[in-house]
């Protein structure tokens, strides 16, 4: 068992790796009544094609990670998992993202032994029938439709589809109605066996309770179980060119406010996950300086109704791609394009002095991110799966120099940009 201290943040961490390979992390929160426990598996919607130890490619139906997340809540004992958690006064939930599937519970009760055992037991036991798999398809179809009815969610989905040609990020996390219909019991069982081994999982506990007792409890729970030998499959993604798939795409919904995205694809820096994170922060800070009130033009954009308070941007840098997206509510696509180009071409020296202000802002935000046990548990588990130390990532901003920021502009190549808009339907 290793204990680390982070005096800058007044935080501690206890970590251990169990004999079956499961990594367990405990973040003590003295004075907190509630506890949150996260069980995370590095299998998300982007893992639609995996390579096994023999080099064979295994392709799944899109949305299989999300489908599996739904089905794990089914128990072979006839007990309803969610009901069992409720009976223990614990809130259980799960989510699937691009990179991981996460199961978690939180409770305000002091005794978390029973829900902790229950979490470990239900995630480590898939028990499904063909009938239950078929039944779930109706529920998931309604979930997909719910998101497709939301203009912002649909615009994001269509933007990924325009920017990326083959990368699985262009497929909705839940899959499509067609791919969901095609998922079978056998496929779910195969995916489960290939990805849900304890050595391929992370458990994070954030609690005011006794760390040693809870870590011992996890160890005992795991020691009582046997797992087959395991070789992890690896995500396989075909490298795609930097060119965007579609430079322009428009679609219609039954809405009144037209929305537009203007997105750039760029080459990520080569290096470690921390290097990618630092590059993401570098782009983010550059954009914050150029597209906030620190830019002298910002107020004139508002006064001329070129933007409203909806205007914003997103940045994502991974090993496979760099992506930056601007979004706004505009009638004219060209207006948004012109505005973004104007912002990007702002004289950097006019905003550079405010970099120090942003460093203070992000230091404050880092400190405050440690207040919420739920968010902290999920963020910590994610960082572990990315081979990052969460507390070290909080200082990523301090690795950035003004010269780094100056070099960001060159990433924004109009030839590698895509514009997507959602308009109202003509009645």
């Amino acid at each position, binding site marked *: 068992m290793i204990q680390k201290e982070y005096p800058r943040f*007044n935080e501690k961490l206890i970590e251990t790796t169990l004999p079956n390979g499961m990594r367990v992390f405990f973040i003590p929160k*003295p004075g907190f*009544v509630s506890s949150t426990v996260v069980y995370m598996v590095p299998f998300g919607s982007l893992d639609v094609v995996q390579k096994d130890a023999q080099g064979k490619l295994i392709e799944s139906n899109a949305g299989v990670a999300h489908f599996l997340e739904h089905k794990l809540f089914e128990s072979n004992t006839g007990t309803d998992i969610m009901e069992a958690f409720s009976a223990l006064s614990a809130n259980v939930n799960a989510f699937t993202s691009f990179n991981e599937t996460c199961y978690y519970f939180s409770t*305000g009760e002091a005794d978390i032994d029973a829900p902790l055992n229950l979490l470990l037991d239900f995630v480590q036991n898939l028990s499904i029938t063909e009938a239950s798999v078929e039944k779930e398809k109706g529920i998931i179809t309604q979930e997909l439709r719910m998101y497709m009815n939301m203009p912002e969610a649909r615009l994001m989905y269509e933007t990924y589809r325009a920017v990326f040609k083959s990368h699985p990020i262009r497929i909705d996390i839940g899959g499509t109605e067609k791919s969901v219909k095609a998922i079978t019991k056998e496929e779910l069982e195969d995916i489960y066996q290939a990805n849900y081994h304890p050595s391929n999982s992370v458990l994070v506990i954030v609690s005011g309770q006794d760390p040693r007792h809870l870590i011992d409890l996890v160890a005992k729970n795991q020691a009582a179980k046997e797992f087959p030998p395991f070789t992890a499959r690896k995500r396989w993604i075909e490298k795609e060119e930097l060119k965007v798939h579609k430079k322009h795409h428009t679609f219609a919904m039954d809405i009144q*406010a037209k929305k537009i995205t203007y997105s750039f694809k760029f080459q990520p820096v080569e290096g470690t996950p921390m290097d990618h994170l630092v590059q993401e922060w570098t782009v983010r800070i550059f954009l914050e300086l150029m597209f906030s009130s620190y830019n002298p033009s910002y107020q004139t954009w508002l006064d001329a109704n070129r933007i409203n308070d909806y205007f914003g941007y997103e940045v994502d840098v991974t090993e496979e791609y760099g992506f930056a997206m601007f979004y706004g509510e505009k009638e004219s696509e060209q207006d948004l394009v012109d505005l973004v180009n104007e912002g990007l071409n702002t004289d950097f020296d006019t905003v550079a002095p405010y970099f120090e202000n942003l460093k203070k802002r992000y230091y404050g*935000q880092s400190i*405050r991110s440690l207040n919420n046990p739920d968010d902290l548990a999920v963020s910590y588990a994610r960082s572990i799966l990315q081979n990052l130390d969460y507390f070290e990532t909080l200082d990523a901003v301090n690795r950035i120099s003004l010269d780094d920021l100056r070099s960001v502009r060159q990433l924004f190549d109009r030839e590698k940009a895509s514009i997507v808009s959602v308009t109202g339907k003509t009645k």
Partner: protein
Amino acid sequence: METFQHFGRFHLLESEKFKDITVSLRILGENKEPYVSMRNLLAQILIDRGAHYPHKRDLSVMCDVCYGLTIDSKTTAYGKAHSLEFKFKTISDRYAADKPFEKAVSFVADLLRYPLINEATLSEAKVNVNASLLRYQDNPSQYAMIQACALAGKGSSLAVFSQGKKEIVDSITVDQLEEYYRRMLKTDRFDLFAIGDFKSQELLPRLRSEFAFLSEANQTQSAYSNLGLTYQTGHSERDVDQANLIQMYSLNAEIFDSEYIAHRLACVMLGQLPNSLLFAEVREARSLCYSIYSSMIQFDGLLTISTGIDIEKQAEVEALIEVQIDRLKTGNVDPKLLRTAQDMLISSLKSATDDVSSLINFYHQRALTIQDETLDSFAQRLSEVKIEDIRQAVSKWRKLVAYTVGKKVSA
């Protein structure tokens, strides 16, 4: 469980476990137009610029000097009252030598005391409020809720959309808004909550001095119940794959009533747990939806049920909902469900002590209803509710509205 210390309208909770300090100022006015639209405009203007901070950049600089001080504003309906909330938070002085919180208090008080209400700030606020209103309309589930409230609450404050109305927003002048703001500070009730790593004996006089422009004597009425009892249905046609259904029930009880707690638990049993009746019967047993839940509009004495379904299945879903409510009315439910609802609510009350927003919401509601109730005494009352109390409470429910947004309903 942790409890605020009340000093008139100032409510303070010292806690070292939070690394920041949150201050929430809630000003409660009448929930009617044109005031609601004006309050939404003020929510934008007051945190955008100030007389002593005439440019957005001035605000950004101050916020960053205070280590990422965030200032948010929000408007919410509380029955007959409408809350305009200003919330600011920054790291406690323990984590920065240059005392960010001390600066933040003076800065935010100055913004509220010396606002910059002129043609430019009003015009920008109108653009943003109207754009936000359009977004509510474009979201089918939010639109269905707005329309259901309008139908159920015709002639009452329930029908007033808490985020404003475009025609009224467009008509407001600078003079009207300035006059209203001055009046609001003199007449409307306020409550100020502070939670975090501070010493009350030092902070209280400081807050009293900085926010002395607010009056501690004012009262604003909030709760009411017994809306009209005529059942109505409504439908808005929209070209979407999934229809949104909202059902509303009058509880025929006020939040001040001692029996209200039974309604609260009945709502949890009906649709707030993974094993709630609606979730179990409509989603899990029949796969008719992904999401179905019940909630309460507490200060209006209402229960709502929300779901997304195939429009062809509306009748089947509505019938199933009725069956579940009948089960509560007749007491035909597993007693374990009540026990679970009680345990879950009590557990969430305990967890609320770790969550600043939940703590403020709980004690603000208490301040507007039963002043001296704590999380502990509320938990005690929750644990004493019996199935018979649930049965009696639900027997009073009257269905007011069923509203759908979706494709045209075939005859």
